């Protein structure tokens, strides 16, 4: 797509300098290794392939999370969302989860979405924790604003992290009440909720960078839904 850079210079707001998230590797319950790394903007088209099938799944609000995440990633790709980042979880190269958020300013971050494609391994929980780790420890922010679209999200985050309810503060995603994670709350919960080892062994990390793989639509739907019934 040809871009008119003169117009782009008007449409693209100046971005904050954002520290990169240092990749880590998490050993999952089945001993598989999940590499968690920051996605590059150029990788967004592949990530969109992973997100697209989820937009058809009503279960657990995957459709709305998927649709919004798709828009956010596309917005980031096309320079229409400021200060956004995206972390991806990969097992053997395959995308198993995506999280994203953005910096509002130096001090405040906004958590956008968390989507897990491989369920049953706490992928979503691990990636959400990585996101909080990024905001507090690497982006150096003081607080992160969070809202939830599904009951799973609400339970997992608001209660697990003991988040502070913010009355009268509207999260960018609209919708339900906004909560915040502060530095203190993060470090209180870190040992319980944040996993992973650094550095990632070179062979694993290189493989993850060189092989950003997406399962086919049927596999993604099956991974998310499992047995859905409808037959004997």
């Amino acid at each position: 797509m040809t871009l008119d850079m003169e117009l782009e210079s008007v449409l693209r707001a100046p971005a904050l300098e954002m520290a990169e998230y240092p990749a880590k590797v998490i050993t999952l319950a089945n001993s598989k290794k999940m590499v968690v790394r920051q996605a590059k903007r150029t990788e967004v088209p592949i990530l969109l392939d992973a997100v697209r099938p989820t937009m058809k799944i009503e279960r657990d609000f995957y459709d709305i999370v998927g649709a919004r995440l798709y828009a956010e990633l596309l917005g980031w790709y096309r320079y229409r969302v400021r200060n956004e980042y995206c972390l991806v979880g990969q097992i053997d190269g395959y995308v198993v989860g995506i999280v994203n958020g953005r910096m509002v300013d130096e001090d405040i971050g906004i958590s956008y979405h968390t989507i897990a494609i491989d369920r049953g391994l706490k992928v979503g929980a691990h990636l959400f924790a990585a996101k909080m780790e990024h905001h507090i420890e690497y982006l150096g922010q003081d607080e992160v604003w969070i809202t939830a679209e599904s009951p799973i999200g609400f339970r997992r985050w608001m209660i697990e992290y003991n988040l502070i309810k913010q009355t009268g503060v509207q999260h960018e995603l609209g919708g339900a009440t906004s909560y915040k994670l502060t530095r203190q709350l993060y470090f209180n919960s870190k040992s319980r909720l944040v996993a992973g080892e650094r550095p990632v062994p070179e062979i694993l990390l290189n493989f993850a960078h060189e092989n950003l793989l997406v399962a086919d639509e049927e596999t993604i739907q099956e991974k998310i839904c499992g047995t859905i019934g409808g037959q004997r």
Partner: protein
Amino acid sequence: MRDVAIIGVGMIPFGRRDEDTLLDMLAYASLNALDDAGMGDKGVDAVYVANMGAGILQHQTSVASALVDRLSLLPAAADAVENGPASGASAIKNGLLAVASGYYDTVLVAGGEKMREVVGWKATDFVATMTHPEVEYPYGITLPGMAGMFTRLYMEKYGLTRDQLIAVAIKNQKMGTLNPYAHVKMIITREGIVESPDAAVNNPVAADPLHFYDMCPVSDGAAAVILCPLEKAQEFTQNVPVVIAGFGQATDTHTLQERDDPTNLKAVTLASEQAFNMAGLKPKDVDVAELHDAFTILEIAESEHAGFFKKGEGGIAAENGETSLKGKIPINVSGGLKSRGHPVGATGVAQVVEIVFQLRHQLDEARQVKDAQVGFTLNFGGFGNNVVAFVLRRSE
């Protein structure tokens, strides 16, 4: 009393079955069982339906009447049976007595539950309604909480170790990957849930000292069996009939606090003894068992109280592989509740279905206990306050 045979079995894969209603699942499992029994176009004399939660979760009652209508089994007698997580075995017991007495010749017993219709903590609350309404439930205690307290006491009394619980979890999850009906088909490893630095996050405490992977999942599912007098089995099917050789049922105090020794699962021991006595058999005669491992501790404790191991040795046996497929007494080679899942009303029926598969020798080598002749099931209601046991025998 007549010998009673199981001539047909049916089950549907357990999991989260969003597309099915409770009646759908019960109907599917029942039709599978009727077809398996060679009765796909026939009626039955009576129907017993095991279900605990339809009134709460689905706002539906009289499920037995509904199923009979759905399956065109009118004018069969029909009763719903509720005994908490032991509803399934209780329903089979009722069916067994009906046939054994000579009053009915053909009985369908179906068990089902749709627990994923509500969010997890509402499902937890529903299960907690089994606890005492005045002195336990208001405190927010859950069945995992009961199991947690029991586990700590068991550890203090018998030296049970966390590694022994983990051995059960790993065994059952591994076997679940081979079971087409299992809800959870996922290997877990010691590295992933205990040894690695990430294990604490992967496998957090759920009800101390029990962890996440000590628990069974919350599932939807259904299973069914067809009973008839053994002497008439050949009129319907060439399947090898499996005889219910013995059954037992016993109760204990509602609250754990009123038991003289809360680590003593008296109802398990009594129910098991009754079943073995009726069958004229002993625990050492059993080739394969399905125990009620809603929590890993229960597989170990039940294996002791049912008589397979001495008190305090069940955990050691599990750790040493004695309860694996090729072990001294294979237990939960289906994956158990841990992997197959625990739709509470279905579980007791599913346990019997799994044993029938074993005794018919119809499973592939990876799951079949070689030349199994005698099976045992234990269905644990409440927290051990109402327990039903069966001894089953291959008839040929």
